[in-house]
């Protein structure tokens, strides 16, 4: 029915070949004897993916946190903040990246902006909610002891919002790392290159790419979970127990 040719898909034998691909260079079946894979290339691509992901996360943080804090403190703009979060979840990453590649072009700056766009909604919404749900009596007390509005935001609401913000950051990072996997579509060679480039790396490469991407994502997740624990104030941690 569909006249358009589909990109051919790999048929997998098992995981053994994939692990061999990760640790030692292999002859490629297609590139005419050029060696691919091996730990060096894996690390290089993993570094690119880490680098663009962190860059995008930083950009998303710089934009989303101040806006979330501002509206959360004022208690206005709830529809907007929550709406952005909902709309953000509905964006199909594959379509976004493919569209950017077809219309805007390729390169790290373009990719970083696209990934940041995906990261902003969860951070913005969770920051907003975190600040808004900060204990109101604590805010009133802070105002009572003569804190300025900025001090209240920085010393009372922000610490209380940290768990919320970090939940948003983790959600954003899951999204960013996953989408960075299809970054080769915009010409940035991440671990996804193994996955999307079966013609160069073979089926073992595809599977190796999947394994490495999953490991990288889990490293990020654990690191951010640890960071969340570090950043949450001791008082809040005790309260939670």
């Amino acid at each position, binding site marked *: 029915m569909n006249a358009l040719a*589909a990109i051919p898909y790999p048929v997998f034998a098992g995981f053994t070949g994939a692990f061999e691909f990760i640790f030692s260079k292999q002859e490629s079946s297609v590139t005419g004897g050029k060696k691919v894979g091996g730990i060096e290339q894996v690390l290089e691509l993993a570094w690119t993916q880490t680098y663009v992901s962190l860059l995008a996360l930083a950009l998303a943080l710089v934009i989303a946190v101040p806006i979330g804090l501002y509206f959360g403190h004022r208690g206005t703009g709830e529809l907007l903040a929550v709406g952005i979060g909902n709309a953000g979840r509905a964006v*199909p990453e*594959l379509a976004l990246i493919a*569209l950017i590649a077809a219309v805007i072009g*390729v390169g790290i700056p373009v990719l970083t902006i696209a990934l940041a766009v995906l990261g902003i909604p969860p951070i913005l919404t969770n920051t907003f909610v975190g600040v808004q749900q900060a204990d109101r009596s604590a805010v009133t007390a802070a105002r009572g002891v003569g804190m300025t509005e900025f001090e209240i935001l920085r010393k009372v609401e922000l610490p209380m919002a940290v768990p919320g913000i970090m939940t948003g950051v983790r959600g954003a990072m899951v999204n960013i790392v996953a989408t960075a*996997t299809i970054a080769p579509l915009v010409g940035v060679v991440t671990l996804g*290159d193994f996955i999307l480039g079966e013609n160069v790396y073979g089926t073992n490469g595809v599977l190796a790419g999947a394994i490495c991407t*999953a490991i990288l994502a889990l490293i990020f997740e654990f690191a951010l979970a640890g960071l969340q624990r570090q950043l949450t104030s001791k008082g809040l941690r005790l309260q939670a127990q």
Partner: protein
Amino acid sequence: MISSLATMPLAAVGEVGESFFHKRTGETLPCQARGGHLFCWDWATENIHRFGTPTLQQLELTLISVLIGFAIAFALALLAHRYRLLQWPLLAGTGILFAIPSIAFFLLLLPITGRSRETAIIALSAYTLQIIYRNVMQGLANVPDSAKQAARGMGLTERQILWKVELPLAIPEIVGGLRIATVSTVAIATLAVFAGGGGLGTQIYNSANLSFPTAIIIAGGIAMAMALAFDAVFLTVQRFATPWRRVEAEAA
């Protein structure tokens, strides 16, 4: 540095696309072949039927995955509600599944389950676990102690308290979880093409369409519209199911 995709296949993509359109339209160059068009209405009106089956597949993938995910997550949440010791391991376990990038998840399943719709459904349901589990737990935790004590005072058993008091009061959070899970699943189901699961992704990640904005916009637009439609449906359900509470569970 080898960039397999940026150089090799994309160069070929243009040719495939062009020859394809030349053949179809004969004399006049279609707007896509002339280039510089973001959206090609002629092509869209002529080819919109291509998107029917993928749209249905996407819908099917989403509904089945969310249903399975809900059944599992709900059961896990009830277990964890009863045996508190399970709470943390279940949260961590579902969190790990959630953190694995979807494409990697699909591909890691392929050697085990093969290229099929089932593979896509397994991965997609795994994604919904964390969201639904967390929301059900949150809903149960938010039930006021006074309500439970009143029920206990009236002589309800623990099981009756769970089904007649706690779960009804937790509906806003539960529906909120279903809502987030469904909306994200629609978006992620676009990637099911990597598992051979069909869906709208087939109209995007496809050698002829990958560099053709019109097809990408249509497929992406349908996916997004579907997600937002689900969002609206669940919002309505939430309002009807809990007339006593406005939408405060959204954020969770």
